[in-house]
């Protein structure tokens, strides 16, 4: 008599790999065990691929049902879900698509998948209260020296990602079924610096300038305003950043108005006043 563990491993091999050994344990009663097992194999495949589709609707639309089904099934076979929380399934799908040979000529596909994964994470992030009017008033009332030492806590839904292709434009046009807009996009137009968050009206995907994006990353990572400002003006962060209109006060105002931060604290004045101490990210424990 097989142990429960052996039986369950046999079922796994049957559903995932088509291994037939488990059939020997199943009562036939006029219906082949393979037919009985097929019901479960088909449910498993359908549920897992549907979870990937729900988390990557634009990718599915871009490549069409058959292609998506093929890619999803190949991914499921390689990296089946580990937990019943299927909203969290598909972390590796973008990476998988990047090296999925049949999609090799769609070099923007993996970027769209990465954006969709960020959107999905934002959708399912825990709820949190954004800084309210009262908190913002107390922030505004701080004297300027203390303001520069403020560190924020990002909303749990906030995601910042960099894509090589204009994934946001492709994503938006695809979900809107706007073929004209899609045709007008140059997939090789260069990198995009994206912010994804869940606000009161829903999910927002915002393209930022590189400088604004880096500044936002630093704030989201828990660096003080002063540190973030110092780093964004610091050539070491990425060589010569493009000279652009960059208004940190306006950007911060937009972040606060959109509810992208949930808390702030004023750090030790001495430490915050010494930007040199905090500019090496490898030495700083963030958050």
């Amino acid at each position, binding site marked *: 008599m097989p142990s429960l563990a052996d039986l*369950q491993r046999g079922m796994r091999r049957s559903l995932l790999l088509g291994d037939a050994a488990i059939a020997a344990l199943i009562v036939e009663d006029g219906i082949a065990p393979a037919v009985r097992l097929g019901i479960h194999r088909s449910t498993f495949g359908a549920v897992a691929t549907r979870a990937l589709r729900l988390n990557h609707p634009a990718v599915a639309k871009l490549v069409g049902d058959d292609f998506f089904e093929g890619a999803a099934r190949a991914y499921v076979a390689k990296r089946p879900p580990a937990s019943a929380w299927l909203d969290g399934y598909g972390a590796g799908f973008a990476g998988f698509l990047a090296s999925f040979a049949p999609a090799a000529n769609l070099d923007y596909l993996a970027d769209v998948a990465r954006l969709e994964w960020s959107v999905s994470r934002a959708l399912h*992030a*825990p709820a949190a209260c954004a800084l309210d009017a009262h908190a913002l008033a107390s922030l505004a009332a701080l004297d300027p020296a203390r303001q520069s030492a403020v560190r924020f806590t990002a909303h749990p839904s906030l995601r910042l990602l960099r894509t090589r292709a204009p994934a946001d434009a492709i994503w938006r046009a695809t979900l809107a079924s706007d073929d004209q807009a899609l045709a007008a996009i140059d997939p090789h137009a260069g990198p995009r610096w994206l912010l994804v968050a869940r606000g009161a009206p829903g999910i927002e995907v915002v393209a930022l300038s590189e400088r604004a994006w880096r500044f936002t990353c630093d704030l989201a990572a828990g660096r003080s305003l002063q540190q973030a400002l110092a780093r964004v003006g610091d050539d070491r962060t990425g060589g010569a950043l493009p000279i652009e209109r960059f208004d940190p006060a306006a950007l911060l105002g937009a972040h606060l108005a959109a509810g992208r931060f949930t808390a702030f604290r004023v750090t030790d004045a001495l430490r915050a006043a010494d930007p040199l101490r905090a500019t090496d990210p490898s030495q700083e424990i963030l958050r």
Partner: protein
Amino acid sequence: MLEHPTPLRGTGSRTPPRLPGIGSPIPDDAGIGLRFQHHREVLDTRPRVPWFEVHSENYMGGGAAFACLDALRHDYPVSLHGVGLSLGSADALDRAHVARVRDLVAQIEPGLVSEHLAWSIVDDTYLADLLPLPLTEEALDVVCGHVDEVQAALQRSILIENPSSYLRFAHSTIPEWEFMAAVASRTGCGILCDVNNLYVSACNHGFDADRYLAALPKAAIGEFHLAGHATRELPGDRTLRIDDHGSRVCEAVWALYGQALERFGPRPTLIEWDTGVPALEVLLDEAATAQQAIDRAIEGLRDRADRPQFATQRPPHARAAGPAHAFAR
């Protein structure tokens, strides 16, 4: 021990309790499974539904679905029905998932929490289906141990649902009805009697649905489920009934439900629909049919209490519910 919800017997009112809504027990009335397609409509129109049940796994995390449920729980009793704890796994429970269920239960304060007699996880792979167990002493020990763990983690009793199944293992030694009863008696959990599952499995495996019902302990029955199923014709004139929750409840299942009500008395009853989810009004219509059966059962109990001389006589409406269902084979 399981606490049964207080029956709202004889009020004749389908109005959801307004105060206090949160944490309300689930009434012995017919509720519906709330699906995403109906979130907006239910939020906007607040239909007269005595209670809602949702799939726990769809409300983990803090997104729009959770916000909807969090809003509705103020006005309706809510039941959380899980599909992912994999109580029958030989492996240890997925601690992270138990924690997610625990957090959701703490946030939603549901009237009932339920799970399945099934397994889905082995070697860190979630096989995305409610898979059948070999009904052995080993499996019984495993399931009871995991039910104990979950009840300890949630600090409350849960209900365990009888499965629908398409295959049996040759080395099973315990009839499913005895297995269900044993889990309830050993762990103190309740039983979610899914009448459609019972019918589907009885047809697929040729066992006697009446005998199944008779073996379940009345005091443990905490809820009924009703749903539609599909029929797959196979070569050799064989049929497998597939529990797809994709149609109205069939006549045979209504009849079996009538028998269950007569045997166990009124209990919270749920209309489930997951494949090709129809308009909300279709679900409400199915729930109304279930409610009529519950009301008839309550009348029957009252008649028997009022007129003890007729206690052994079946009330006419029970006969009207139709003959005992015939197996399709």
